[in-house]
């Protein structure tokens, strides 16, 4: 069986769904960050696969580079926020972060 576009898209879907479930169900703040990374990575697989299998050419790869850079920036800021949260609450259970609740 030849490797086609569908296989890459399905791998991207597995990573995307794993990331979404990870974001939705985990109560550990760092685990939620890992879910975000997985979601962005799944989208990246789709970009590169479409760059290979359509006329997009290098455009898809350039967009995936931007996604990688933005994911790194997001991880840096989110980890800084997580460290601040830990300093204030002595835990990273995101259910404890309800101080802004009305």
């Amino acid at each position, binding site marked *: 069986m030849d490797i086609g576009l569908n296989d890459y898209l399905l791998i991207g879907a*597995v990573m995307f769904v794993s990331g979404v479930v990870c974001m939705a169900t985990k109560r*550990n703040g760092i685990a939620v960050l890992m879910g975000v990374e997985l979601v962005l990575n799944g989208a*990246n697989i789709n970009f590169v696969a479409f760059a290979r299998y359509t006329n997009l050419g290098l455009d898809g790869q350039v967009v995936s580079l931007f996604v990688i850079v*933005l994911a*790194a920036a997001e991880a840096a*800021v989110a980890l*800084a926020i*997580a460290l601040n949260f830990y300093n204030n609450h002595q835990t990273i259970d995101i259910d404890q972060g309800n101080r802004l609740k009305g």
Partner: protein
Amino acid sequence: MTEQTLFWIFAILAGGGAIGVVILQDIVRMAFSLIISLGSTAGLFFLLGADFVAATQLLVYVGGTLVLLIFGVMLTASGPFRRIRMSTGETLLGAAVGLLFFSVIAFTVLSVNWQAVPSYREVAGSPSKQTGNTSRAIGLRLVGIPADSTIGLHGGRGSNTGYLLPFEIVSVHLLVVLVGAAYLARAKRRESTDAEPEDA
């Protein structure tokens, strides 16, 4: 044949690592599983002929983001907070929603007939895309010069401006983010600020 073998190895590692991040409860094991998943994704990028993106993935994700993540794990995962359990009902509900969501996406992907899409092609057109070697072309594309022969293809200016502006925006964004992260993560000690008037 080797391409298919490599694809299945990397695909199983990437998908298994992603599922492992969801299933495992220990935060350190989750980080390791994430390393496996992201590294295998870089392998998939190599198979797709995107060698520059794959190298960036290895450098930035596996080299940078995961060091940051493990740093966060080290600083925050102490004792009782390392495992935060979910209830069984939540686990079952999450698994059901995840399976449902995945089946929706898989059904959508498999129901598309890619041969009928006009821009679809089975084999890469330009030889530089088949063999990889895309770093020079991507660099030219980033500074605004299209490397492939698409100059004037879409009627001259407008569509061929490349990615110079997004590149600059992302550069400034990265700088702002680094400054902001350093500001957010700096050590604040309430005791010392409370005791400061007495010291002064």
